[in-house]
């Protein structure tokens, strides 16, 4: 009997990865004011969720609290601060030196290069080893780290970065502009196997005019460059050029607070404090991340104290339980920007009609799904952007309440009459489809099964089938699937609202095969628009169209939890983006 851990599945397609609310709140510089924030629960550090145990379904607290809670100030970028701003510390103690911190993750660490920062567990370790020109902290504030300041030309075509001096790499060499140029040039090229190539979209040239200055010229404005491109981790250029990416990712050399000590990919990764780190030696001696695939075992490891924190979420019932255990854990709650949704193949005869897709939205009681399947730990979705992306979110879109009668009448009006077998049909085509769920997806399979019931209630036949993640993605993109269920970012992954890869007709991740020329034009305009007000208007319209066209069935945005054992000191009082907390491990100490 083989049993795939749900987290292996979830890891590929969960929205709640490092990247997603990837700390990229968005660009200052050219564009928009930017992002907001994630709604933390009341003042952060506390729970949104009810304090009752898992068995009760009193979800009232969670769902209702989040969308209407406090307004968080927009993100700032410190363009000229000489040291990264420290977040307010929760505990006022004197840091103790020494000790080992134990983290646990849900998947193996495949590589440690800047190219491997996609999977969340990997990012946690890569950020200990490297630094970037700018880094976003747990409150969406971009801090200059390897850069001390930067300027953007008014036309958005030139960026000038001033670099910090006196920074050393782990091999003792000095950091300079040559390393930045090399890093940018290398990773902007997809033929180097770089999956982050598009972070440098529209980049033309990188010039290292002197050891502490880098000038980046763009072919066309790219609103997301500051958030994405300048946050790429910098490698030791000579070393990387010598050994190549394949070796580099097993033996990275960065400027980060910790250096790689031991890496056994399927078991653990250990980093040790780097004495010459430019911000000072970290307090702890070593930091280890171990692989524990089974979520229940991760919970137990936290409870026995064998682990100080889990970098990946556990089962939602356990998350809520740990959240409530304030005696033993310091917990942070955030909200994901990846939408939990059913991509549906718009080319299928039954999904081609907009009215049918809208009817399906009316047919599902999405709040009930949130309350029963996810214990209320999620926020209802109204479109492709999460409600907490305050700078971009448009609330004035078409809303779908739970209305079975309306769903039925819309389906009837669209010509899908109920057949003698109880399934709707039109022109000999039955309204019967297969929804693919990730193999072993403990979190979302129940959701699919529940929605299957809602579909049955309006005489639509939905079958649920399990397949591996890679197969699902490939088949959907090839147009060979009907529907699936997973989390993905349709804009907002960097805090930047661009959704070209998912909503554009030729997008690389257009799972629903959505084809709307008006949407294509708007997406293109949005990427180039430099005026903040005009840009907001474009993305408002995009969200409006999404809620009207319903290219995919958008369900909810998950809450994300981070728990730390009480012995971990030096954590901030609150965090708008909990996943980002691990970037500040160099500030922690063990009580």
């Amino acid at each position: 009997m083989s049993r795939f851990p749900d987290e292996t599945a979830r890891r590929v397609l969960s929205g709640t990865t490092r990247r997603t609310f990837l700390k990229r709140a968005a660009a200052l510089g050219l564009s928009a004011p930017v992002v907001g924030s994630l709604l933390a629960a009341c003042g952060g550090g506390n729970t949104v969720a009810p304090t009752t145990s898992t068995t009760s379904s009193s979800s009232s607290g969670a769902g209702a609290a989040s969308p209407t809670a406090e307004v968080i100030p927009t993100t700032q970028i410190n363009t000229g601060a000489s040291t990264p701003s420290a977040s307010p510390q929760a505990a006022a103690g004197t840091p103790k030196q020494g000790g080992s911190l134990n983290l646990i993750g849900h998947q193996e660490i495949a590589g440690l290069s800047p190219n491997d920062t996609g999977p969340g567990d990997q990012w946690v370790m890569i950020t200990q080893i490297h630094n970037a020109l700018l880094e976003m902290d747990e409150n969406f504030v971009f801090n200059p780290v390897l850069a001390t300041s930067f300027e953007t030309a008014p036309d958005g075509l030139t960026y000038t970065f001033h670099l910090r001096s006196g920074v050393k790499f782990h091999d003792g060499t000095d950091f300079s502009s040559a390393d930045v140029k090399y890093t940018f040039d290398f990773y902007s090229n997809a033929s180097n196997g770089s999956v982050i190539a598009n972070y440098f979209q529209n980049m033309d040239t990188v010039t290292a005019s002197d050891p502490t200055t880098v000038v980046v010229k763009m072919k066309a404005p790219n609103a997301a460059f500051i958030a994405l491109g300048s946050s790429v981790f910098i490698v030791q250029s000579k070393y990387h050029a010598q050994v190549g990416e394949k070796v580099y990712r097993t033996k990275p050399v960065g400027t980060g607070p910790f250096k790689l000590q031991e890496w056994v990919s399927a078991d653990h990764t250990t980093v040790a404090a780097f004495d010459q780190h430019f911000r000072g030696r970290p307090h702890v001696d070593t930091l280890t991340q171990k692989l524990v695939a089974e979520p229940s075992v991760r919970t137990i490891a936290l409870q026995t104290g064998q682990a100080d924190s889990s970098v990946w979420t556990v089962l939602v019932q356990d998350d809520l339980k740990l959240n409530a255990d304030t005696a033993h854990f310091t917990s942070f709650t955030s909200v994901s920007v990846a939408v939990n949704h059913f991509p549906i193949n718009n080319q299928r005869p039954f999904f081609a009609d907009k009215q049918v897709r809208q009817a399906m939205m009316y047919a599902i009681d999405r709040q009930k799904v949130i309350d029963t399947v996810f214990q209320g730990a999620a926020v209802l979705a109204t479109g492709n952007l999460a409600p907490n992306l305050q700078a971009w979110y448009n609330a004035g879109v078409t809303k779908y309440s739970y209305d079975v009668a309306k769903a039925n009448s819309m389906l009837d009006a669209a010509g899908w009459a109920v057949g003698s077998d109880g399934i709707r049909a039109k022109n000999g085509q039955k309204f019967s489809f297969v929804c693919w769920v990730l193999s072993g997806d403990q979190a979302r399979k129940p959701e699919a099964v529940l929605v299957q019931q809602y579909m049955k209630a309006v005489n639509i036949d939905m079958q649920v089938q399990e397949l591996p993640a890679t197969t699902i993605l490939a088949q959907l993109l090839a147009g060979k699937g009907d529907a699936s269920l997973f989390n993905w970012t349709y804009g907002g992954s960097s805090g930047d609202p661009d959704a070209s890869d998912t909503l554009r007709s030729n997008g690389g991740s257009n799972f629903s095969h959505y084809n709307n020329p008006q949407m294509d034009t708007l997406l293109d305009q949005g990427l180039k628009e430099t005026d903040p007000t005009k840009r907001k208007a474009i993305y408002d319209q995009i969200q409006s169209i999404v809620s009207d066209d319903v290219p995919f069935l958008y369900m909810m945005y998950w809450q994300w939890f981070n728990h730390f054992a009480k012995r971990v000191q030096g954590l901030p009082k609150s965090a708008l983006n909990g996943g980002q907390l691990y970037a500040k491990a160099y500030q922690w100490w063990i009580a």
Partner: protein
Amino acid sequence: MLRYVIRRFLQGIIVVFLISVATFGILHLTPGDPIFVLIGESGTAQLTTEQIAQIRHYWGLDQPLYVQYFKWAGNMFRGNFGESVIEVGTPVSTLIMQAAPVTAKINVLALLLAIVIAIPAGILSGVRQYSIFDYFSTLGATLGVSVPSFWIALMLIILFALKFRLLPPFGVSDWKGYLLPVVVLAIEQTAIIARLMRSTTIEALGQDFVRTARAKGLGQAVVLTRHVVRNALLPVVTVIGYRIAFLLSGTIVIETVFAVPGIGQLFVNSVYHLDYQVVQAIVLILSLLVVAANLATDLVYAFIDPRIRLT
């Protein structure tokens, strides 16, 4: 005898070859490829289709199937198992060398534990058929085979790690970490071996030579040790011998739950991510092991039992 061995050896080669072709074929017929794992996470990479094609080309994933197969086979003969696509830069042989000893250790310990418990229990059950002990061990064996191992594993972790704080909840960094995985793995094996031992004992007890031995006036202990057990052990030894072929498999569930970095976890993750080279290498090794262990067991069996003639 020598002819027999050579013939079996050649058959084994053919079997292994066919398995490798079949594995290769199935893996590549499965839609999708490892690229999505590399790009994966919620589409934040925002790559265009051209860039995805470039990356696939970089990994050689766009070459025709037969080219990929022969390249792999050629490398194999030179001892080069290729590289993992997911864990780029790491040769497959390194991954396997890291993972194999852990799995082997757990399997060997579990098998030893199973043998130590099951054989005496089985003999006792067979000798004292229908006694209380027999009923309990039958019940135990049935439960051992039917209750899912992952459930037992989780229950034991909750009990010994959480409630009693005696053992670590995961990992095999010290000897304490080995206890639970070995016990859970041994449960099913113990059940099977005990039942088998019981039936062979009963069968041996009914043989003529036992009646002769008793007629000669030999005591129960001597009858058992000198006649019954030795004969009853034969089929059990065969079964145990075949199980040695599975020294590197059968631990997928255990490894996942207990976070043991063994072959099982490596294999499952690789299949899931369509990491071709790793899967093919593991399947090849496992099939070689099975073929070799089967042949060895047959030879040992022929050696032990004079009635058997190998042709």
